[in-house]
């Protein structure tokens, strides 16, 4: 860990963190502001949803969702929060070392007296700090939104905390998988397409996994590992899937160190 690199990396991402945080706050507040209307018309709402084809509901993760309850409605928003955080985290993951290489500043950094391990650790910690900040903002805006708009309706705090806590595991997955993919390909020219690809790819897998029934797709996508509907329904994580998620993240991290230490930094061509 090198404090200079950490500080430099953290500053470089600060603007992005602020924008994501603002977007997520607005998303949560505006979306949840509609909750009272939904809750009042609950019977009508659930009747309408019942007429939708089951496949469609499953694809949007709404099959077992009760939009009349605080957490039921929140898990609908939660899915969008997940999607945003997935894009943000994969963005940081893919860009962690590849931006330095595509903008050709890697030579500057790596000709300094620091080891590759130090460089990667400092960068990872800086990215994690950025993700954690965004995470905290999500927590705060969630609590603010719920207390503003729940209008006295009760909810289970423990379940909400479980939901929110799952976000960090979720972010870590996309950060580390993004990183390891960026080290496996020869050169990442532009980070955004990769990041969107990974985030939406994982989402699409989750959607299809519901539509086609039991085909095992839930094993490979974090949207299923940490499915809000499941957590709300059971008041608990799907433990084996969460463990799988964490295991994949850790393997990706370990592989990233292994690859980065041995990596040939591409020269200007």
């Amino acid at each position: 860990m090198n404090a200079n690199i950490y500080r430099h990396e953290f500053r470089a991402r600060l603007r992005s963190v602020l924008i994501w945080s603002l977007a997520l706050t607005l998303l949560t507040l505006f979306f949840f502001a509609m909750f009272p209307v939904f809750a009042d018309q609950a019977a009508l709402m659930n009747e309408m949803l019942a007429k939708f084809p089951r496949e469609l509901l499953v694809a949007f993760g709404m099959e077992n969702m009760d939009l009349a309850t605080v957490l039921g409605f929140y898990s609908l928003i939660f899915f969008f929060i997940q999607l945003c955080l997935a894009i943000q985290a994969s963005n940081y993951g893919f860009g962690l070392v590849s931006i330095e290489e595509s903008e050709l500043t890697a030579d500057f950094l790596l000709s300094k007296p620091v080891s590759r391990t130090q460089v990667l650790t400092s960068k990872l910690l800086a990215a994690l700090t950025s993700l954690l900040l965004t995470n905290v903002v999500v927590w705060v805006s969630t609590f603010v939104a719920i207390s503003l708009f729940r209008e006295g309706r009760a909810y289970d705090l423990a379940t909400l905390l479980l939901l929110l806590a799952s976000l960090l595991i979720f972010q870590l997955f996309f950060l580390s998988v993004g990183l390891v993919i960026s080290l496996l390909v020869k050169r990442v020219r532009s980070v955004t397409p990769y990041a969107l690809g990974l985030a939406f790819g994982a989402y699409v897998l989750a959607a299809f996994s519901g539509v086609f029934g039991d085909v095992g797709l839930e094993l490979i996508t974090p949207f299923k590992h940490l499915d809000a509907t499941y957590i709300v329904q059971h008041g608990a994580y799907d433990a084996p899937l969460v463990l799988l998620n964490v295991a994949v993240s850790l393997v990706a991290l370990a592989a990233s160190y292994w690859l980065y230490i041995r990596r040939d930094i591409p020269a200007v061509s």
Partner: protein
Amino acid sequence: MSVIEVTKLTKYYGKARGIVDVSFGVEEGEIFGFIGPNGAGKSTTIRLLLSLIHPSSGSAKVFGKDVVGHGPEIRRDIGYLPSEVYYYEGMKVNDLLKYSASFFNGDHTQRMHELSETMELDLGRRISDLSYGNKKKVGIVQGLLHSPKLLFLDEPTAGLDPLMQRKFFDLIREENARGVTVFFSSHILGEVQRLCSRVGIIREGSIVEISDIRALQQNNYKKVRVTAEGLDAASFDLPGVTNMQAENGALQFFFKGDINAVLQRISAVQVADLTIEEPTLEEIFMHYYE
């Protein structure tokens, strides 16, 4: 003491050749010139020594330590000026230089200001607003500000105007006078001739010659030009004759060896004109590359 010791260093990028079986040594306090055309493997060699890339086989030591295992330690005393300079575009020059200095022990602010003044570098500007030449100046200051013991200069003068080039050379000579070892890679022979004491010539990934620059110029090669009737290339069919060219009844060639052998052949014919001179480094160089 050898500051750099390279032994049979080989680097392949997949199947593409980087360098093959390169061996040489650089002594403490010397300015070692490393010449070759683009793509010969100059940058590859420097990048291997900085452990930016890893060797396929062979080994290299800097300050007596293996570059693969002791990279961070070695780089504490290294200054590196890459051939193409790229820095964090959003940063100000001042912040970038401070960031660079922060990796080294001690306070380097004063040296940073001295160097920027010498190179006429404006510290308040943004990297993204700088011209190529100005970025190069940032590179020079960045490479020197922590007073390294060994300098890697990879085609350092590209983009600098002649006045700045001279200042830069003065700076390098000053550093060298303080005992700094310099590894100077270039494809421009004039500058190598001006600065270096020894030179290694690399071609298609292999070292073709390592020699004292004066020895290379004076002792080994003579450029001979003879004008006489009835001459053909066969008249000088001697070991040591290379680069034979015939034009307008005159013969021109390089000769390495005992000059008397050539003189004997010349005395056998009626000579109209004769010159024997030192070839320029440029000509020696071309000779290696043909």
